[in-house]
């Protein structure tokens, strides 16, 4: 009985948000503002469903696969939705963050029923991308996620957001198309699209098969665009900066994270560790791409003035760490990558929510304007400070354990370049984080020597009203208790998870045991 309910959960998680995405539009014909309520009910429902899924998957110490065969067609012909230890953790992150961000959008975010239709469509796409067990189905969900993201990024009031969204659309489509081309090569070599079936078929075709290697190359480059690896990251800072403040936390925390998860899934379930080690230069190239992104992203983040843009470049570097850890392909590094995937998603959700709260209540957008924030807005500044310190990787925090295990894996695998890069990137992260912290805590809002005190008083307000970013519609809204509560809760969670390194290892153990031997 419980097994039957369990196998329905994956399809429920994917279908419910996508079907619910039509409701705000239908209700919108008669009622003005029902979108938020529909989104809240749906996101809360999917969160509960994902918790239930987690109890099924993690309830057993063995490797559990909750499989739903769509339409009752069996593997390899049918399309499957598969929940295992790896994907369930990502599903928990997606449902949790999408629920938390709603606390901000109720008052601060873009309004209107169409926005929430896009929101639910994006959540459904992300859940589908996390749960799918079919490489072509993965392409479809990749594009659904893409469409949802382009629409949400463009939902800002300013014209800049449309330009950023179009840039993202063109680059993102190329990424997804390259992935599809790679899938085509794999299909040519094996004649199947199911991931578990592909795993055996790819091995049968031989890891040195030209079609398999070409397919891997296209898939990797496609994902490198979607995950925003240097030098293919160009779309990402613009999209994050010009998206409305209510959208950036969702997009920054989830979209690239789930794409990076999908890369890991294809790498370890379809191609397997044996392929990565057997193919000449495969591991080296993956590590090189990741390591370059770490350094380039950190350096670019240090020289930014806009806080949102700075955090966007920081994402480039953090995802570089994850990709490099994939390339090392040892158990420790892989667990580190998964922890960092979750931890970074959580931290960026909290940080971008805090940025939204600051823009809404304090009118600050650049590093310079953050001066005196700790004095004026102690709660949001405190939450943001904890999240920033966690991003650097100072224990105890989720940022620390992720980096620690990746570094440990790199040392064990004797990948000295990666170890050096992690150390360097931590220093550079500290550089841009410290710059912001110094502004928030140690620089007074109005320089004492400045005689034109009143002129400075109006400067931040003018900056918001002028709508240079126009992300929050040019109106200074009010900061609600719920927004602050979410930022503080995420900060507390980020610290608490810092003690959960062993727990993650145990949770992922059945999956890693399957993959790494």
């Amino acid at each position: 009985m419980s097994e039957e309910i369990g196998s329905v959960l994956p399809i429920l998680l994917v279908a419910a948000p996508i079907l619910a995405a039509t409701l705000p539009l239908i209700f919108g014909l008669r009622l003005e503002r029902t979108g938020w309520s529909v989104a809240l009910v749906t996101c809360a429902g999917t969160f509960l469903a994902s918790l239930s899924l987690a109890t099924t998957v993690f309830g057993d110490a063995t490797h559990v696969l909750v499989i739903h065969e769509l339409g009752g067609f069996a593997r390899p012909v049918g399309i499957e939705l598969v929940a295992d230890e790896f994907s369930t953790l990502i599903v928990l992150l997606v449902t949790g963050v999408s629920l938390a961000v709603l606390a901000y959008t109720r008052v601060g975010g873009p309004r209107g029923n169409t926005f929430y239709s896009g929101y639910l469509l994006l959540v459904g796409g992300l859940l589908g991308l996390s749960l799918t067990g079919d490489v072509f189905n993965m392409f479809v969900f990749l594009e659904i996620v893409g469409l949802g993201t382009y629409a949400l990024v463009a939902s800002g009031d300013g014209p800049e957001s449309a330009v950023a969204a179009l840039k993202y659309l063109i680059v993102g489509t190329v990424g997804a198309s390259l992935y599809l081309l790679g899938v085509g090569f794999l299909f040519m070599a094996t004649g199947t699209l199911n991931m578990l079936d592909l795993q055996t078929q790819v091995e049968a075709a031989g890891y040195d098969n030209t079609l398999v290697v070409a397919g891997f190359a296209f898939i990797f480059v496609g994902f490198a665009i979607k995950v925003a690896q240097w030098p293919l990251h160009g779309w990402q800072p613009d999209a994050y900066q010009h998206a409305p403040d209510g959208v950036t936390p969702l997009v920054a925390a989830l979209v690239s994270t789930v794409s990076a998860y999908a890369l890991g899934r294809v790498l370890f379930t379809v191609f397997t560790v044996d392929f990565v080690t057997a193919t000449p230069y495969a591991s080296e190239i993956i590590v090189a791409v990741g390591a370059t992104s770490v350094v380039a992203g950190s350096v670019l983040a240090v020289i930014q003035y806009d806080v949102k843009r700075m955090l966007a470049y920081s994402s480039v570097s953090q995802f570089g760490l994850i990709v490099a850890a994939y390339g090392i392909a040892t158990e420790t590094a892989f667990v580190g990558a998964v922890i960092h995937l979750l931890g970074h998603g959580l931290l960026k959700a909290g940080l971008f929510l805090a940025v939204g709260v600051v823009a809404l209540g304090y009118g600050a957008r650049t590093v310079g304007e953050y001066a005196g924030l700790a004095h004026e807005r102690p709660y949001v500044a405190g939450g943001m400070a904890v999240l920033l310190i966690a991003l650097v990787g100072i224990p105890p925090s989720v940022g620390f354990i992720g980096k620690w295990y990746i570094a440990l894996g790199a040392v064990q695998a004797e990948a000295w370049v990666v170890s050096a890069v992690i150390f360097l990137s931590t220093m550079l992260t500290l550089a841009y984080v410290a710059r912001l912290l110094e502004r928030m805590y140690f620089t007074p809002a109005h320089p004492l020597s400045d005689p034109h005190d009143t002129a400075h008083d109006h400067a931040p307000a003018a900056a918001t009203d002028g709508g240079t970013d126009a992300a929050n519609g040019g109106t200074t809204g009010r900061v609600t208790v719920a927004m602050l509560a979410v930022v503080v809760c995420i900060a507390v969670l980020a610290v608490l998870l810092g003690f959960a390194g062993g727990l993650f290892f145990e949770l992922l153990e059945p999956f890693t045991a399957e993959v790494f031997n």
Partner: protein
Amino acid sequence: MIGLEILASHYAYALMFVLLGVGLYMMIANENLVKKVIGVNLFQTAIFLFFVSVAYVEVDGEPGDSPVVPAEVAPGELFVASPLPHVIVLTAIVVGVALTAVALALIVRIYSEYGTLREDTLREVRADE
């Protein structure tokens, strides 16, 4: 000579990569935003054609295998192309149409805000602001 033979039997793939290149070049080099989107469409169309031609590839000397009608039923008589790539292309076309619609909607909005469709002019207008 071997090169020519490969070209004669694999011209579909050569055509596909030429189209792919043309699409990519249009995306990068053309200043007009609408033509950039046409470039994206060409790029995608090339991949669709690739999938269609894959469906006819022989497997182990036998004509195209298909999950619905296996090739062994009447070897040498029944030539069935695999329906799976066709279904994939059908789905991918729908996705492509949706993408084009979103892209054009964004371009309409950019035009109404900035009054231009050219990227270089757009850059100048944005730099002035």
